[in-house]
C-alpha cells in the first residue's frame, strides 16, 4: 500500500501571488524582473481576493505569498484570511523585514500555515552587504518568533559565489535556529542575477566543496531538518523540468495582475500575458494563448521534438532558452543535446577564476537602478 500518487496535473495547483515588487532589501540575485520600477498599478485587495477564489475553484491548493516583500502590503492579513477560509495551504515567502512578533501572531490568527524566511548569509557583515540594508539581527529575531509561534519554518538561502564558501556556517546557523526545512538554492540566472552573473556564478571547485558539506549535513540531520540543495543548472548537462512544464501546475500573478506561467515568463517578448483585471482565471488557465503557447509537446523543435527525455524535462526552461539563444522554442542550452550548449559551457569556463572576478561590480536591485537600466535601454 503506497501513500502517494503522482497524477495531479491539469490544474493550477500552485498559485504564486506576487503581491508587490516593493522591497526594503536590494539583493543583487533577485529573480524579479529588471523593470520593477515600471509596476505602478498594484492589484487592490478585492482583486486579490477574487484571484484567490477563482484559482481555488480550479483546484489550486498551495498559495505562495511573495514579492518583492509581501509584508509591505498592509492588507496581507486580509489576503491570508481569505486564503485560509478557502482551504489553501498558505506560504509567506519573506525577508522578515517589516515583521514583528505582533504581526507573526496576527498572521497565525488569520490562518497562515507557514513562513519562509530568507537569509543572505550567516554573518551580519555579508548578510547586510548583500541585502543592502541592516537586517541580520532582525532576521534572527523573526526566525525565533516564527518557531515560538509553532509555524513550520523554512529558511531559504540563495547560494552564489559571494557566500558559497560560508556554507558550513550557514548550515550551523539553520541548525541553531531549529529550521524544519532548509533550501540552499543556487542562484538561477534570470532578472537581476543574470545582470550580475559575473559576480555570482561559483566556480566548479567551490561548488563541489559546498555540495559535499551539504550532503554531510543532510546525512547528519536526516530526521530533524530536511536540507534541499539545488545546484546551479549552468553546470548540468540535462535541463531542469522547469515549472513541471509550461502551464502545467504553476500560476503566477504579478503585482499588476498579469498572469504568468512562471515568475520569469514576462522576460519572453511577443507573448501577450492576460491580466486578471480583464479575464477570469478559468479563461487565463484554460483558454489564453499565453498559457497554451508551450503547453504539451507540439511547440517543440529538434532536438526536443524527437528526444526520449522530453516527457521528463519538457525541454527545460523557456525563459532560459530565450535568454541564451534568442528563441524561446529552442532547447534549453543547459542540455548537452542543444546546439547552443557549447557556447554556454564556454561562458561558464570563462567564469572560473574566482579571484580575478571577485572585484566585479555588483548592480543592486532597487528602484533607482531599475529606472536607469530602463532609461539606458530606451
Amino acid at each position, binding site marked *: *500500500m503506497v*501513500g502517494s500518487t503522482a497524477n495531479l496535473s491539469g490544474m493550477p495547483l500552485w498559485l504564486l501571488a506576487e503581491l508587490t515588487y516593493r522591497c526594503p532589501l536590494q539583493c543583487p540575485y533577485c529573480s524579479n524582473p529588471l523593470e520593477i520600477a515600471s509596476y505602478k498599478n498594484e492589484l487592490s485587495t478585492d482583486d486579490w481576493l477574487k484571484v484567490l477564489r477563482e484559482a481555488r475553484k480550479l483546484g489550486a491548493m498551495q498559495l505562495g505569498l511573495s514579492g518583492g516583500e509581501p509584508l509591505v502590503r498592509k492588507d496581507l492579513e486580509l489576503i491570508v484570511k481569505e486564503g485560509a477560509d478557502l482551504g489553501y495551504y498558505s506560504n509567506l515567502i519573506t525577508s522578515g523585514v517589516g515583521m514583528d512578533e505582533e504581526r507573526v501572531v496576527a498572521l497565525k490568527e488569520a490562518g497562515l500555515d507557514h513562513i519562509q524566511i530568507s537569509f543572505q548569509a550567516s554573518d551580519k557583515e555579508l548578510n547586510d552587504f548583500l541585502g543592502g540594508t541592516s537586517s541580520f539581527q532582525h532576521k534572527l529575531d523573526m526566525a525565533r518568533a516564527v518557531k515560538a509561534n509553532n509555524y*513550520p519554518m523554512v529558511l531559504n538561502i540563495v547560494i552564489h559565489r559571494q557566500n558559497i564558501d560560508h556554507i558550513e556556517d550557514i548550515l550551523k546557523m539553520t541548525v541553531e535556529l531549529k529550521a524544519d526545512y532548509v533550501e540552499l538554492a543556487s542562484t538561477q540566472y534570470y532578472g537581476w542575477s543574470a545582470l550580475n552573473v559575473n559576480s555570482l556564478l561559483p566556480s566548479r571547485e567551490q561548488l563541489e566543496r559546498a555540495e559535499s558539506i551539504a550532503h554531510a549535513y543532510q546525512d547528519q540531520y536526516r530526521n530533524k531538518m530536511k536540507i534541499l540543495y539545488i545546484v546551479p543548472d549552468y553546470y548540468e548537462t540535462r535541463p531542469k523540468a522547469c515549472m513541471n512544464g509550461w502551464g502545467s501546475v504553476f500560476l503566477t500573478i504579478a503585482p499588476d495582475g498579469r498572469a504568468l506561467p512562471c515568475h520569469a515568463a514576462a522576460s519572453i517578448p511577443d507573448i501577450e500575458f492576460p491580466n486578471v483585471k480583464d479575464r477570469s482565471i478559468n479563461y487565463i488557465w484554460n483558454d489564453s494563448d499565453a498559457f497554451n503557447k508551450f503547453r504539451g509537446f507540439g511547440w517543440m523543435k529538434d532536438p526536443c521534438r524527437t528526444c526520449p527525455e522530453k516527457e521528463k524535462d519538457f525541454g527545460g526552461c523557456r525563459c532560459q532558452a530565450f535568454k541564451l539563444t534568442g528563441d524561446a522554442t529552442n532547447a534549453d542550452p543547459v542540455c548537452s543535446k542543444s546546439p547552443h550548449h557549447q557556447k554556454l559551457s564556454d561562458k561558464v569556463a570563462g567564469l572560473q577564476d574566482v579571484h580575478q572576478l571577485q572585484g566585479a561590480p555588483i548592480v543592486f536591485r532597487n528602484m533607482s537602478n531599475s529606472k536607469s537600466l530602463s532609461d539606458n535601454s530606451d
Partner: protein
Amino acid sequence: MSEDRIPEINSFFRLQWEEAQNSFVLLYPEGMVKLSQSAGEILKRINGKSSVQDIIRDLQSAFPDVDLTSDVITFINQATENGWLNR
C-alpha cells in the same frame, strides 16, 4: 511497532479532503502529496487519541471483507518513516 501506539500526524503536515482531487491530500510547506484511498482512510482516523488497535478495529468495521491488520501496520511504519507521523 506495538498496536498500543497512539500515532499522531506531524504538525508540519495538514490532512485535507480535496474535492477537485477526489481524495485526501497532505499539505506541507510548498508541497503536497495526493493520498490513495486506503492511505486517506487510515490517516483520517489518526487523531492523537486512537491507538493503532483502535484504528484497525474501526477500519475493519468499515471494510469487513478483508483482514487489514498488516496493511495498516505497514502503512503506519512507512508514514512514520516519511515523517508524516511523529516518531
